[in-house]
């Protein structure tokens, strides 16, 4: 299966390889990407004909109604799901090769912390698995816990932390091994507005500081507009990309930028896109 995917990539991938893989080419490149789940009630077209290029250092939000394939797209990028059609490259490799090269950190909707490990222990998990030495582990744990504002909580167990703190710990864990790509699937979906605003601010700061490529799934239009450089609007059944909206807001984004006319104009554009998606549906 793997070899098949590589040969499939080999040829059509040639134009994309122009820029020379890792360096200048897109970090993620999807062409005609489709994924159909065979279920007992018949096929579910979770993704259909998705074309998308994501450049290094971009912050791309995915927005769309429930069931439009946002999670599925992220899982395909992460090689947790195998596409049934089209191609996708991550860092110029197959997703599976990228996974084995530990190219990305994945933040799930639920924090997914191991209850028998402390916060520091949870952040250490990927570092242990990837074979970092002890000193380096400690250094990185300190660094990323700092980054998410959790220094001092390393010795606590997950159940001693609030939901928002747990989610921050899971972000720290995804950052700890310093992969170039961060895949985030509604990481703040279960949190209240105020905590969410705060985490959004922190996330932007973190993104600027680390220069990572971030793919961020959300249901919230303001969140998508506030965070991203580009917004991918999707529609369900079959899951496709309706529109890709460039975010023209300046890089410097204080929270109150959300009240500016530019912000509202882009939010309006996203809403229009979502509405178009529903028109497809009907």
């Amino acid at each position, binding site marked *: 299966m793997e070899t098949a995917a590589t040969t499939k990539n080999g040829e059509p991938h040639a134009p994309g390889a122009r820029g020379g893989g890792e360096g200048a080419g897109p970090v993620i490149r999807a062409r005609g990407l489709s994924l159909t789940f065979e279920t007992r009630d018949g096929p579910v077209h979770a993704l259909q004909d998705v074309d998308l290029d994501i450049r290094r250092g971009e912050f791309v939000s995915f927005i769309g109604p429930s069931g439009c394939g946002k999670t599925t797209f992220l899982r395909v990028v992460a090689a*947790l799901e195998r596409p049934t059609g089209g191609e996708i490259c991550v860092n110029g490799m197959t997703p599976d090769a990228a996974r*084995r090269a*530990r190219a990305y950190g994945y933040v*799930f909707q639920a924090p*997914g912390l191991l*209850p028998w490990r402390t916060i520091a222990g949870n952040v250490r*998990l990927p570092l242990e698995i*990837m074979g970092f030495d002890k000193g380096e582990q400690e250094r990185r744990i300190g660094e990323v816990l700092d980054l998410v504002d959790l220094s001092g909580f390393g010795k606590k167990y997950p159940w001693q932390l609030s939901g928002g703190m747990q989610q921050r710990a899971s972000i720290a864990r995804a950052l700890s091994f310093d992969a170039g790509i961060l895949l985030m699937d509604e990481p703040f979906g279960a949190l209240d507005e105020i905590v969410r605003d705060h985490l959004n601010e922190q996330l932007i700061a973190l993104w600027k500081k680390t220069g990572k490529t971030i793919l961020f799934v959300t249901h919230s239009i303001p969140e998508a507009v506030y965070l991203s450089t580009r917004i991918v609007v999707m529609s369900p059944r079959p899951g496709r990309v309706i529109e890709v909206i460039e975010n023209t807001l300046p890089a410097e984004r204080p929270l109150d930028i959300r009240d500016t006319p530019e912000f509202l104009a882009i939010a309006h554009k996203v809403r229009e896109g979502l509405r178009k998606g529903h028109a497809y549906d009907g």
Partner: protein
Amino acid sequence: MTGEAVHAGTRGGGARGSGRLGRAFAGTMGRALPIFAVVLAIVVLWYLAAFWLNAQWVLDQAERAGRSVGFWEILEKTMSQERPRLPAPHQVVAELWHATLGMKITSKRSLIFHAWVTLAPTLLGFLIGTVTGLLLAVGIVHNRAMDMSVMPWAIASQTIPILAIAPMVIVVLNSVGVTGLVPKALISAYLCFFPVVVGMVKGLRSPDCILLDLMKTYNASRWQVFWKLRLPASMPYFFTSLKVGAAAALIGTIVAELPTGAIRGLGARLLSGSYYGQTIQIWAALFMAAILAAALVGVIGLVQNWVLKRMGFVR
């Protein structure tokens, strides 16, 4: 009653300093009270049953002697027969007392001696059964072929009446020169491995999909997934399996002692007691077995609490 009073006391008093201790005490009492009530009910029922079952013998005796007996005499005589149909609780307790503390441990009639004879193969069988169960569970979780093939066999193995194969195993092993502890331990292990397999397969499969996916995104090897995720996640299941397994191991040993002409061990005490109609001896042996089982399960429970607390499972 006292439990209620303690409850009320801690609630009403609300002394901060001793609050925690008081609460723990009240908690223990709160848990102990229902147990105490059940025990009391059982003892009462038991006395009633002893009277009911043993009265006939007293009446027969009196009839043969050609005299009549009053209620109190019947009552008294049903509680003090040498070979009652159902010995009264105090008779069993007295026999237990006599057979444990009342004689030397080396005596052939000491229940402690017999208990040890049974306990040793139980522990060995428990060890063998647990290790076998663990290995099978690891195999089942990691290997599709084993997943498909082992479980049906494991279930089938438990549907064979142990009472039927125990003598065969013992006879066969004796004939090849394996005697003493080991044959009993093997039968004990035969009963013990099953709950461990079932519990550990469930435990090793207990981590959420999301955690397995997470490990995949780290490109973790199966071995790493096992040590860092599956095994720790299975610990609560592990201890539960151990408790069931320990009880099963004890039953296995006793069954192995029953039909083989063994003269030592709790199983042998049960059998010889039933040969000679020594019901009190049977019941004392039964209680000794129950005490052993409770002790085994209790020790496992203590280790469980300690380990799970250290692992951060218990809040």
